[in-house]
């Protein structure tokens, strides 16, 4: 199974995982690496290496989900990029992680990454647009 590693600033990664498990139950081959301000780049890189090794040990590849393009978690992750073996998606959201946990069983790493990139973007909604398309003016006045 494709492994998933969530890497973020502060404790977001741990919390993303906790939120996903609250919805799906315990997840296999998923790890989190939370990079706090007191952690050196070397230690963070080490933790990420261990996480990638752990969730990717069966050879199906690893997808790293990071919080923000341009941030340290993404920059460190980029060192692990390897076609067909380690892929990265930035801008993690909960739909991305939940879909990834479920969709990875019958896809290869490239397919999964492509799917999640679109899925996570489309999962961003603006409720007032739903109202407008239902014939309201963007608000509800009872």
């Amino acid at each position: 199974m494709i492994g998933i590693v969530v890497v973020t600033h502060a404790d977001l990664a741990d919390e993303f995982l906790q939120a996903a498990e609250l919805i799906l139950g315990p997840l296999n081959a998923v790890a989190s690496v939370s990079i706090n301000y007191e952690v050196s780049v070397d230690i963070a890189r080490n933790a990420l290496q261990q996480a990638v090794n752990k969730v990717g040990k069966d050879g199906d590849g690893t997808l790293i989900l990071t919080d923000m393009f341009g941030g340290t978690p993404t920059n460190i992750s980029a060192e692990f990029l390897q076609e067909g073996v380690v892929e990265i998606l930035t801008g993690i959201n909960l739909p991305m992680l939940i879909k990834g946990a479920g969709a990875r069983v019958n896809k290869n790493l490239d397919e999964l990454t492509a799917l999640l990139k679109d899925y996570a973007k489309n999962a961003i909604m603006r409720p007032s647009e739903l109202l407008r398309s239902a014939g309201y003016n963007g608000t509800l006045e009872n």
Partner: protein
Amino acid sequence: MALVLARIDNRLIHGQVLESWVPFVRADCIVVANDEIAGNQLQKLMMQASVPSRIRVEIGTVAEAIALVNSTQLDHRRVLLLFGTTSDAVRAYQGGLIYNRLNLGNLQANKGKARLSCTLFLDPADLDRLELLDQAGVKITARCIPADGERPWRKLIPASRRRGK
């Protein structure tokens, strides 16, 4: 129609239902029976929009849900039925929407209710309603998500609070 899950969940359609229960019971239709949500246009629209388009979703009052489930409209559907409260569940049952099993998911409350599990807070009136359904032959169990173990509802009640026994 196959009723694949009847559940009390005060959050109605939400992450646990969509991401865990729907695939677990292979539902292709979600019916919500709750008067309050039926009158809340924004919440209704948001819940409808959160459900993948291959799944039919019907959100209505308890009375509307009874009529719908007992019509031929949902023939061949695998229906996941959601109640918001124990009262919804009893009113539906007494109104002719018959289910044999009832899942207790989320019933959180702040005060005035006793916490019987991580996600279930019930007051004596809730217990009376569940008792009524139990007496009618409904098998009631607590299970928040499929990955959780299933527990008979009576096992949740501390001995001190059990009545008539």
